[in-house]
């Protein structure tokens, strides 16, 4: 419960940061090439490999870090985009992340919205918000790390006991999901950090040739 409260504070802090940034855009040109809530240099990048199950203290500290303009998730991962490959953005550790510039989302994040809304929302609800049937993934991705996320999507998950009958299918063989797993992940990151509001992203970057080539290759395998 403690963790959830802290998480709520985190999201709130992120929202405030976003709002302030959005107001800035009405009066001045925002700084180029910086993602999210005015991302500064990574402050805790080394924590990216931290276990998926975060210690309570880590989560409790999160709002302070966010208030300083940092981009570190409760799970210790820094989401600052530093490099681009095949049309997708990655952080310093090579983990996929999103990039939102002047309100324009990168194509992979936009496509993550589309794929999420086709493959995931029938259980997990619109916009990563969760439903009566399945948890809010926009929150899950803040807690678990990228590799755990991948493993669950690939292999599925069961929570079947006297109180629950929750079963998530394995999507490892489903190209409509697996070819876009990183897109779905970064979309949920953007949702979870409140850098991306609910609904269809208003503006997106163009689809690059590298992205198209990689997509065609994956879908035709």
């Amino acid at each position, binding site marked *: 419960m403690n963790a959830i409260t802290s998480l709520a504070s985190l999201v709130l802090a992120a929202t405030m940061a976003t709002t302030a940034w959005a107001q800035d855009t009405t009066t001045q040109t925002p700084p180029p090439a910086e993602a999210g809530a005015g991302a500064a240099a990574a402050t805790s990048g080394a924590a990216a490999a931290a276990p998926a199950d975060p210690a309570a203290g880590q989560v409790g500290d999160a709002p302070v870090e966010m208030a300083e303009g940092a981009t570190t998730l409760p799970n210790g991962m820094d989401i600052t985009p530093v490099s681009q490959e095949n049309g997708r953005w990655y952080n310093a550790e090579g983990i996929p992340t999103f990039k939102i510039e002047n309100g324009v989302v990168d194509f992979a994040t936009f496509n993550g*919205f*589309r*794929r999420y*809304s*086709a*493959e995931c*929302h*029938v*259980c997990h*609800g*619109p*916009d990563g*918000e*969760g*439903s*009566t*049937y*399945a948890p*809010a993934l926009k929150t899950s991705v803040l807690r678990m790390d990228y590799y755990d996320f991948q493993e669950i999507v690939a292999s*599925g998950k*069961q929570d*079947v006991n006297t*109180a*629950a*009958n*929750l*079963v*998530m*299918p*394995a*999507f490892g*063989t*489903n*190209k*409509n*999901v697996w070819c876009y797993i990183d897109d779905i992940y970064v979309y949920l990151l953007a949702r979870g950090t409140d850098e991306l*509001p*609910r*609904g*269809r992203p*208003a503006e997106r970057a163009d689809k690059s040739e590298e992205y198209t080539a990689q997509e065609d290759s994956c*879908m035709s395998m």
Partner: protein
Amino acid sequence: MKRLLNSTVAVLLLSGTAYANDSVLAETAKPEQWAIQTGDYANQRYSELDQINRDNVADLRVAWTFSTGVLRGHEGSPLVIGDIMYVHTPFPNNVFALDLANDGKILWRYEPQQDPEVIAVMCCDTVNRGLAYADGMVLLSQADTTVVALDAKSGEVKWSTKIGDPAIGETLTATVMPVKDKVMVGVSGGEYGVRGRMTALNLADGTVAWKAYSTGPDEDMLVDPEKTTHLGKPIGKDSSLNSWEGDQWKIGGGTLWGWFSYDPDLNLIYYGTGNPSTWNPSQRPGDNRWSMTIMARDADTGMAKWFYQMTPHDEWDFDGVNENILTDQEVDGQMRKLLTHFDRNGFAYTLDRESGELLVAEKFDPAVNWATHVEMDPNSDQYGRPQVVAEYSTAQNGEDENTTGICPAALGTKDQQPASYSPKTQTFYVPTNHVCMDYEPFRVAYTAGQPYVGATLSMYPAPNSHGGMGNFIAWDNIEGKIKWSLPEQFSVWSGALATAGDVVFYGTLEGYLKAVDADTGEELYRFKTPSGIIGNVMTYVHGGKQYIGVLSGVGGWAGIGLAAGLTNPNEGLGAVGGYAALSDYTELGGQLTVFELPGEASAAAEPAAEPAPAEGGTSG
């Protein structure tokens, strides 16, 4: 209804044949019971009971409750046969027999062992739309496609038959319909590329009598190219194969997960087929026959008499599975055997159920905009087809294009939640959605047992309206007009019940059971049950006293889509989060709530008891 039953009896007497399904006709004719999910074969969901009526319904109170022990979406309703009430649950599909003569003591319970992996292929919650009763057996359709016949007194398994394969996405969510010596069983999985079909099992032992596919070669569909008709004309050879590109029909959907009806006079069963797979129309050029189709088939052989395809080449996921309500009414001074169907596509259709002739097709929500009208001129080459508005055509706008402002949304102006019909007011009472959408189709690959969707959609309350996501309406099926409409904050996802007491009952997603005046729609009573209602309201008599029963347990498509509330991307950021979230009103829970009037069963019970013997006597 009375006329229908009486003439049925006449036929039975004349023919002198004792059918095995006499039990269903007999049990559904007793208003003190609720023997099949739809109340009767005609799907009217009407009760002759009138102890609870418009003058005293305000005094309604909770008589007793029962927790099902399961937390998922609870659709359907309990059954009552004699002194026993039968309650079902979503997965794991437990069944409880409650002794009404002994304070609801559990007489027996059935807890099937199913591989939980089946949950992974249930697209929209692990719902189950309830049990059916026939020949001293309670019939259960399990999620894993097993149909089980249980001895109604002991719960002992009489037979068990698996009609599908969850490994390729096939599941069962619909109730079954026992007819004569058979049991009609549908199949779910339109979002997994399942090939829809009706499977008729022999009621005596569960063996398969016949299968009638919705798509494919003529022999698979049980059609006669010369005699099976569509709007009065023979469907011709290879009618389905000619309407698909290549082998797409094999993974083309047309599943059956709604309600079935039956006319004993005509010996025809009626049902609707679901969406064609995928949701991306560009991947399946053609009319995609016979998805989105009302079908009339011979109850013994399965041979198709007539089809009517409501939404050729679907572009919006407007499944045609909703119930077909059978009535005998006067049209232009002539008594007609009618079939009324409130489709997901937002049109309410009235047909002649003997010939399949289309009589009325009108919008039952003024917000519906994807088509201007249904062509009613038999001489037009567009006869019977909806006239699609290009702006809202996801096929014409094409893949990777976001088509905005389509009304209704994919969940339809109405989903499976069944309407009810009162012969007293000759009015239909219809739970509806008032939701619109943006829809962007894109290319998808098929993998067996995996979702096969191919479109992204965003939903929001109908613009320029009352801001709510639902209406509960009264409908005139002859004029094709709304009589009155009650705005609701959320979609109305509960099946309605009309009674001879001039009251109509329905549940809401917040969890209210509501009673309204059958003539005016005036609200007469409401009570907030522990969880949102997506179940159907039923009624019965025990110990001379009328009760109203309903299952609470939010979930299903409604719980998934509305839990976090809706947003409207077209109204800018200001609207985001501006709509009600279901999670602010209710939580998961599975409970039966039974209502009664205060006081013991008394003189008030006497008048209500009168119609019972009359009805039961003539048809027993």
